[in-house]
Every structure is written in C-alpha cells, then in structure tokens.
C-alpha cells in the first residue's frame, strides 16, 4: 500500500513539474510574442508542397505570425471537416473556399464579412479581375479574396494529329462549325469502336461545368441577378446542349462513354495519348504536360463559338481565402489573407510557387509570364473573362442540376429543352427556399 502511495506522489510531482517546465519554455520563447494561426486548405499531392512553400515565405517575412497548414479535402459543395468545425465553434483562422462556394458558405453563416478590413487596407474592387471580385460579393458584402484565379478554358490542340489528318497544325478551329469539321476529320471509328475523337465537348472538369462553358460560349445566360431567376432554359443554352447532343447522336453515346471510361487527367489524359486531338484546358494542365508529356507538340487558343455566340468566351473559378466566423485570431488571419491575395510579394509567391494566377490585377507575377507562349494565352483569357458562376447560395445544386440535364439529353432520355427546363424549375425552387429562409 505504502509503495502505491509513494508512486502516486511521485507521478503527481512529475506531472506538476513537467507542466511548469512546459509553461516556462513557452514563456522564454514568447519574448517576441508569436501568434500561431491555422489555415485549412484542399491542396493535395504536389500542390501541398507548393502551398507549404508559399506559407513558409509568409512566415519568414512575418516574424510575429506563424501559419500552420492542414489539408482538408473538399468537394464541389463541401468541406466536411470545416463544416463540422463551424458547427462545433472551433474553426481555423483562415479557410480556402472555392469561388463558387463563397455565397453558399456565407449564407450558412460560416464566414466573416471582410468589408471593414478591405476599407482599412485600401483594397478596391478594381484591383481585381471583375468576375473574381463578383464571385466573392454576396448580399452586398465581400466574403473572400481570390487566391488563385482559374480562367476556364483554353482550347488545346495536338499539332501532330492535325498534321497527320492533313489539317494546318497552326490553325485551330475558330468557330463551332469549324470545330465540327475538324472533329469529323480526326475521329476514327473502327469496327464500331471509337479509336480517336477530335473532341468530346463535355469530357473534362465535370458535366455541370461543361454546360456552363458551352452555354456561355453560345451566348447564353444562366441567371438573372435582378429578378433572381434561374435561366438555364435560355434558348442559347439550349442551342449549346443541342450541339453537344449532336455529337452523342452521331457517334452513339454509349460508345463515346465506353471510349471515355478510364480516361482521366495526368498520365491518363487522352490528349497526351493521342486519343483525342482537342480538349478544354486549364492552367494546371501546363505543369502536367511538362511532367507527363514533355514532347507533346501543342497549341493553345480561345474557345471557339458560333456566330450568334460570345467571342473569346470564358469564366472564372479558382480558390479564395476567407476568414471563418468566430476564429481566434482574425487580425493575424487578415494579414495572411491580404499578403497572399493583395500584395506584390504574396501574389508573386502564389504564382511562381503554385503556378496559379492571382486575382490581383497588378501582381508582378503577370510580368514574369506575359511572354510565355502558353501562359500568356491564359492571361489574355483572364483579362477578357466576363463570367463567374451564378452568385447564389444553391450553386452546387445548380451545377449538379445542369450536369443531370446534360446527361439526360446525351443519353436521349429527355430533349435538351425539357432537360434544361426541368433544371430551371428544380433550381428555382431551391433558390427561392434559400433566399426566403434567412
């Protein structure tokens, strides 16, 4: 028994002493008090290392603040860990939010509005590419700043295949009619099996986004912010869908589906493998090409559009930084957000280290890349960009509904008009509910 008592005292003493020592070592470090803040981000793989380098650059230039990073996966609508943290009122200091998610997250009460800080720091809307700013402005307030703008999309073409079928390798299609003609020339069907296609218009970055991309290129509109009406049934959007359905009909949708199965990004990208000759392309593809297809002979250009459509059509996506409601160190968090999104050093670091375009127009990074034959195309696209996804709190639902409409029409289950009509009514119901339910 006595032995137990002695042991008990011994353990207690060790615990107390060690905790005191712990406090002391903390004190000795905090002569210049360092504020530790946390950021949760969705950058995995190579991007994680690049992002950590950006954060290191910040930590080095800001001795009073130390930023810790944590990877939290994120899908089109959600970041489950973050949402759980918000519900439990235990949030990180900075969160990465997809530009299209900002209104929904703001509506949910997960974010802190930035307006007062923007005024104090002299951040103005005209400092940013217009769609980048618009996608973060909801209910008259600004909720996030663009970290990496993502101009969607360029058309990339494989020059080798163009040469092979007798097309001028330096002349990409400039209209939809031309695109169709090129596609017919390139597509090869052997014994009822598709072996190569010119382009699969909806094949990359999700079917919902494909609907947006081509809808805008055909001159359509998806939302009227004044009347708060969903306009997926815009005749020009329907035209865009009819055009995609014409591909599904010409080559049989299940055959195109079979052809597309297993094709993906990175080393499985069908463009690198010569299975398709043209594709929609975004900035990270350029580093992929360097890594996985260094010998690819390719060109980049604006998306083609029909005569009644929108020339040089594109829209912006990308990642933004926001401050979660109820975070512990909002001031230090803002210093980090401002540095990454609004300073020459920070935005250059983002560009140089991660290959992302800052949303900040005056970033010196753009001087670095303006003469690069490929990056400069993306810069032009971003400068001319007119669209962002509709700034509504049910955006994920909308994109999903557009994707469904596209699939239904491609597989011949519904006419393009009926499919988009259904998407319009479904999303309108959700939107009205979300707006009514403040």
């Amino acid at each position, binding site marked *: 028994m006595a032995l137990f008592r002695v042991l008990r005292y011994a353990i207690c003493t060790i615990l107390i002493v060690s905790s005191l020592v712990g406090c002391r070592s903390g004190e000795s470090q905090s002569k210049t008090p360092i504020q530790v803040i946390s950021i949760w981000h969705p950058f995995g793989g190579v991007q994680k290392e690049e992002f950590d380098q950006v954060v290191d650059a910040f930590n080095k230039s800001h001795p009073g603040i130390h930023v810790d990073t944590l990877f939290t996966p994120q899908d089109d*609508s959600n970041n489950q860990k973050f949402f759980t943290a918000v519900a439990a009122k235990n949030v990180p200091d900075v969160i990465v939010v997809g530009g299209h998610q900002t209104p929904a997250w703001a509506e*949910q*009460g997960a974010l802190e509005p930035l307006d007062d800080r923007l005024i104090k720091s002299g951040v103005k809307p005209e400092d940013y590419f217009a769609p980048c700013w618009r996608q973060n402005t909801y209910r008259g307030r600004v909720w996030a700043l663009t970290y990496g703008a993502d101009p969607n999309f360029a058309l990339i073409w494989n020059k080798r295949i163009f040469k092979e079928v007798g097309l001028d390798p330096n002349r990409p299609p400039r209209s939809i009619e031309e695109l169709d003609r090129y596609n017919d020339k390139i597509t090869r069907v052997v014994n009822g099996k598709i072996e190569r296609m010119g382009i699969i218009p909806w094949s990359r970055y999700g079917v919902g986004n494909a609907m947006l991309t081509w809808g805008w290129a055909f001159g359509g509109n998806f939302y009227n912010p004044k009347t708060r009406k969903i306009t997926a049934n815009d005749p020009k959007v329907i035209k865009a869908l009819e055009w995609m359905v014409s591909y599904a009909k010409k080559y049989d949708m299940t055959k195109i589906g079979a052809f597309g199965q*297993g094709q993906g990004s990175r080393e499985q990208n069908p463009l690198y493998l010569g299975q398709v000759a043209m594709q929609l392309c975004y900035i990270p593809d350029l580093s992929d090409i360097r890594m996985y297809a260094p010998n690819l002979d390719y060109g980049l250009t604006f998306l083609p559009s029909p005569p009644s459509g929108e020339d040089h059509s594109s829209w912006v996506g990308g990642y933004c930084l926001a401050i979660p409601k109820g975070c512990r160190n909002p001031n230090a968090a803002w210093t980090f957000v401002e540095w990454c999104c609004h300073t020459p050093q920070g935005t250059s670091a983002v560009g140089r280290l991660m290959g992302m375009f800052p949303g900040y127009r005056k970033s010196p990074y753009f001087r670095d890349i303006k003469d690069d034959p490929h990056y400069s195309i993306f810069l032009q696209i971003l400068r001319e960009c007119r669209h962002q996804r509709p700034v509504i709190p049910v955006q994920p639902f909308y994109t*999903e509904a557009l994707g469904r409409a596209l*699939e239904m029409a491609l597989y011949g289950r519904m006419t393009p008009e009926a499919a988009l009509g259904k998407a319009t009514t479904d999303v309108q119901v959700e939107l009205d509910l979300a707006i009514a339910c403040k």
Partner: protein
Amino acid sequence: MKSRNSKTVRQNFRNGVLFCSPLIIGLLVFTVYPVLASLYYSFCRYPMLKPPVWIGLANYRTLFSDTVFYTSLWNTAYYAAVSTPLCIITAFLLALMLNQKVKGMAVFRTMFFVPSIVPMVAGSVLWLWLLNPQYGLINIVLRGMHIPAPGWMADPLWAKPALILMSTWGVGGSMLIFLAGLQDVPTDLYEAADIDGASFIRQLWHITIPFLSPHIFFLLVMGFINAAQYFTQAYVMTGGTGGPVDSTRFFSLYLFQNAFQYWKMGYACAMAWVLFVVILLFTLLLFKTSAKYVYYGGEK
C-alpha cells in the same frame, strides 16, 4: 439477513451498472440520441449550420413527389433483389467446392477469401479497370469469345449488372459461414443416403440445404440490409455522381448527396427514416415467413 441480502443485491446492481456505464453512455450518446435527433430533423428544414426550423411533414411530402427518389429506390431494389441471392448462391457453391478433401485446400480457401478483405475503395478502383469497356480484361475475354462486350459502367443499362457482378467477388465472409455450416452437417446422414443410393444432387437437396437453411436465412437478412444501404462502390466508381443517367444513384448515395452536397439534412433524415421503415418491414416479413423454409434441426 434478508436486508443484508438485498443490500448486496443493490450494491451489485450499482457496481454492475457502473461497470457497464461506458457502454450505456456510449449507446445513449452516440446511438440513441442521434437516432432520435434524426427523427426530429426529418420534420425540419435543416441546412446544418443554421438551427433547424420545424416544417411538419413537408420533407416527406416532397420526397414522395421526387422522381429521383423513386429512381434511387428502384436502383436499390434491383440491386438487392439480384445481388443478394446471387451472392448467397456463389458463396454456397464455393463453400461446397472448398469443402472437398483435396490437397492444399487451405491455399484455395485463402485465395477465395482474400478479396473480401480488400478495402472497398481499392476493390472498386480495381474493378473499374477490369470493367473498362475498351481495355478491360473482362471485355477482352468476351471479345475473344465473340460475345458482344457491353459498356459496363459507361452504359446506363449495364452499370447495375456491373456492380452486381462485382459484388460476387466479395463473398468470402458468406463462404466462411457456409463452410462452418457444412462441418456441422451430421456425416451419418450422408452415409445413410449413400447406402440408400441417393445421388449427390438428392443429398444436397435433402440433407445439405436443410441443414444450412439457418445460415442461408442469416445471410439473406444481412445481405438484404447491406444491399439496401449500398453506397461505397457506387460512390467510388461513378465519382459520386450515380451516373450514367442516374442508373447507379442508389438510395444511400442520393441520401448522402442531399445531406452533404445540397445541405438538405432534414430531407436526408426523412429519407433515412423511410429506408429504415422499408428495411424493418422487409426483415419482419422474412422472419415471419422463415418458419416455412428454415430448419433448425431435430424439430421435425
């Protein structure tokens, strides 16, 4: 004497409850409370980060006019109705074969069991490649035999059969249960049947299957419940979309999408309760009718 006795009883009871308390508290906090809360939320509009608002039966009313809900119900019923019996038959046949007295049987048994310990996500990715319509092993074999090769996961007609085919790959657990059951069948019955000149098929039908009927029944109930909650493979193999054209949008997948992609937690809870009631009714039906086809030995 009596009072001391009852005191001990009370003390024992108290100590017993105290010892069980981690379990009891865990059950109350992590099972009973969430279950009851989900029932409450099913009557609410609840976008998760905002407080739930009571809307009565509105979620249930919307549910019964939601076409995707019926599609997902049909997909799940289709899968459950085909996959459950198919898996049981496969497991049974495998168990019969692996119950022979052949050299190296342990190796064969391990080989057939291994797939069921492959994580579901890894298995799904593997099968996605096996089922690839252009380059997949399955279609290469089919083409070699001059059988038209389907589009599998790229074809709305073949996506569910593809998943069902894949489900037979993971029957290792059921196979083990059958193997254990086969050891329990009294050998003297087989000997007697042999003397009577009964064929293998007759022995199977009159001895093996009746003795294994409790196992079959157990696997039927569990298989049905699992099939009703089918999620992971469909989620992984379609990138979470349930495509092509909703052909693999199973009930749980649609529930998940509502809860975690559209933030309609109330609606998702209503769906969960509908699923619960469906499973409950069907299981009750199975139990009620079980007396007709399950033989527990010795009663007749």
